[in-house]
């Protein structure tokens, strides 16, 4: 077998082999059972005592939300202030200036919501202080907040008739001390020994072989890159993200980064089964997600390995596939695998430039973010999937004339309204955003912004439209990757994507939490012959159909105008 394909298969299997035991471990952590990291307990008690938190106080779903939203507001203000002031703060060896208010607004939201859209370049737009004390800090806490919200839903599914759903701070802190911090440490050590820089030294200068003077950006990169992937954040140290040779030096670090970003989202699917003692249910979810992933992955790998037909016509050989925007040390097959994983999982880090990928690949990446729940981001992937489960239960109930029930609770009008709103919000903010930006390009080409609308697009025609569509899709899905040719460093993109990111983060957390909380309060109906079984493959097919109809089809017209049209023009 070709070594590029075997590398991809190996990476996926390694992820699974690690994710299953990790899922069991995560379930034990949140059930409060014994784990081998129990020596962290005194450390956690110190954190709680310092913060004045009593973890014994159980919260209902509204109190959970209050806690989550309050601490997120604190982080938002903190991040915004630091980014504006970074020029005057310590740890700035390259003397980079503070960010403009609109860039700081966008960047603060972007890292707060686990999106990591970057409208600046790390080499010149951030300092070592903001990279660590803002970005890396938010990498940890935004991932932990998503997982904590998911644990609340786990808890609501588990107990019969209750409004006591555990303590938010407890879930949140334990996610950091028991899961994110220890694993990040191991990953960062692997990175350090593979050449990723770790010291706080600033830029270096040398004279090259040909006699050019070269300045080299570096910094304490390894620690950040570990949690950047483990927490499905994706915001890189350098502008080129994980295509940069210091941020991703070789095939081993590349494999590690790939495994790290898929690890927790897949582990959480298994954790659900272990936590609720319904393993079959988590196999059904895993099956649906994996089939969805393969549906996007196989055409992408195929398209990239076949190369660019326009370049083939020039008589150039593409033995390995399309190379524009890709790195030799990873190769097209692995870059294709990465680009699908990073879009379905909401990481948004890249090891190749998505803007230069084949149109088929671009379509699949967009679909990955449009669906946004095949594995999905840390915690939020399953929360998104949960919405589709509720809708699937309701529709199948109607189809067979049974009361729609899920885990012994009736799903009624109120839950369905919330679920539908959340499901429709995603296409709404993406398509409206793309429509507004298209309008601005046509009707206000000379607007006096940092980048004029007439020069926003790096590519003409359908591909240019795809750049704008991608930007809003990535923002709404809290993904953070981009068709980076887009001139997004100006007030229009900073402000509009800022709001899209906030809506795309918090409503899909509030919705499922509310549904789970409401359901947990309802009368428990024991299973009977009339109950719809949620752990069967029939139900899996049902969820899959709902996802395809709602998420994929609502975007079809926009996709047809963008990458699909480009595909046919290239043939």
């Amino acid at each position, binding site marked *: 077998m070709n070594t590029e394909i075997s590398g991809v298969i190996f990476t996926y299997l390694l992820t699974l082999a690690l994710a299953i035991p990790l899922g069991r471990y995560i379930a034990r952590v949140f059930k409060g059972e014994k784990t081998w990291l129990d020596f962290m307990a005194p450390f956690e008690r110190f954190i709680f005592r310092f*913060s004045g938190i009593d973890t014994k106080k159980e919260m209902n779903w509204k109190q959970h939300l209050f806690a989550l939203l309050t601490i997120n507001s604190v982080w938002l203000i903190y991040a915004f202030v630091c980014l504006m002031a970074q020029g005057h703060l310590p740890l700035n060896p390259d003397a980079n200036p503070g960010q403009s208010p609109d860039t700081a607004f966008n960047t603060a939201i972007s890292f707060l919501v686990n999106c990591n859209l970057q409208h600046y370049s790390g080499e010149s737009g951030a300092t070592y202080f903001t990279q660590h004390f803002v970005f890396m800090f938010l990498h940890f806490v935004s991932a932990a907040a998503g997982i904590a919200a998911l644990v609340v839903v786990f808890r609501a599914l588990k107990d019969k008739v209750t409004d006591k759903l555990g303590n938010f701070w407890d879930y949140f802190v334990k996610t*950091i001390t028991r899961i994110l911090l220890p694993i990040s440490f191991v990953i960062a050590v692997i990175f350090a020994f593979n050449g990723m820089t770790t010291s706080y030294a600033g830029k270096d200068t040398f004279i090259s072989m040909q006699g050019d003077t070269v300045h080299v950006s570096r910094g304490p990169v390894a620690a950040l890159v570990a949690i950047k992937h483990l927490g499905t954040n994706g915001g890189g140290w350098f502008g080129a993200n994980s295509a940069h040779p210091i941020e991703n030096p070789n095939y081993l670090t590349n494999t590690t980064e790939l495994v790290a970003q898929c690890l927790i989202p897949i582990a959480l699917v298994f954790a659900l089964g272990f936590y609720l003692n319904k393993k079959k249910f988590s196999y059904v979810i895993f099956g649906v997600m994996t089939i969805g992933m393969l549906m996007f992955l196989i055409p992408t790998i195929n398209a990239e390995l076949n190369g660019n037909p326009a370049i083939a016509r020039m008589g150039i050989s593409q033995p390995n596939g399309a190379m524009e925007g890709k790195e030799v040390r990873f190769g097209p097959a692995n870059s294709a695998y990465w680009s699908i994983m990073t879009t379905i999982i909401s990481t948004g880090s890249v090891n190749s430039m998505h803007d230069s990928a084949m149109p088929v690949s671009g379509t699949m990446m967009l679909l990955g973010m449009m669906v946004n729940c095949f594995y999905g981001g840390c915690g939020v992937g399953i929360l998104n999937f949960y919405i589709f489960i509720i809708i699937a239960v309701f529709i199948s109930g109607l189809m067979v004339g049974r009361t729609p029930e899920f885990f012994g609770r009736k799903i009624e009008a109120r839950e369905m309204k919330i679920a539908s709103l959340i499901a429709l919000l995603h296409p709404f903010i993406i398509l409206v955003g793309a429509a507004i930006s298209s309008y601005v390009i046509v009707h206000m080409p000379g607007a006096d912004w940092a980048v004029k609308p007439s020069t926003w697009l790096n590519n003409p025609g359908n591909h240019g439209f795809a750049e704008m569509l991608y930007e809003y899709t990535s923002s709404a899905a809290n993904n953070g990757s981009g*068709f980076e040719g887009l001139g997004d460093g100006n007030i229009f993109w900073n402000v509009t994507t800022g709001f899209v990111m906030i809506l795309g983060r918090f409503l899909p957390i509030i919705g499922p939490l509310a549904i789970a909380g409401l359901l947990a309060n309802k009368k428990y109906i024991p299973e009977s012959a009339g109950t719809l079984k949620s752990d069967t493959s029939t139900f899996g097919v049902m969820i899959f159909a709902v996802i395809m109809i709602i998420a994929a089809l609502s975007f079809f017209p926009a996709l047809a105008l963008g990458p699909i049209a480009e595909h046919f023009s290239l043939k």
Partner: protein
Amino acid sequence: MKTYLLPSLKLTLILIVITAGIYPLAIAGVGKLTPGHGDGETVSYKGRVVGYALEGQKFTKDEYFWGRPSAVDYNAAGSGGSNKGPSNPDYLKDVEKRIQDFLKHNPGVTRAQIPAELVTASGSGLDPDLSPAGAQVQVARIAKIRGLQIAEITQLVNEHTEKPMWGVFGPAKVNVLKLNVALDELKK
């Protein structure tokens, strides 16, 4: 409000210290034990640092192996790809120009022998590597200009070809900087 705001503030403070202070300092400590001491591994020639092992640099002279085209002109204080879409007509013209330039400097080479990576820009703009074919196709030019045997340089490229990870995963590659240093060391 007080029930949530005060714990939020204090928890934020202590987590900043742990995740952004203690954790990266511990990693920086571990980094001191690595080959590059955490500063990045450098490559030297005649006792002078001529580059970073991981980062590509610009080679345009005919007597050196050329690396890949770079959208940022190998500026290691910045990075990035061209972000050109595959159907962009201006981009395709650029590729055609690179092909003709390559053919002019490498007489005897046909279009079908040029691997795509030599005429397409990398993702980072700092790609340090070529595929083995990308290096071999330049051997004849370098042998002629340096007055060396083709076999000798082919041998050098083979020596510098790094196999896929553990022999089975991922592509094979050649680090252009290390190869060029070895080339200069040949005629000492």
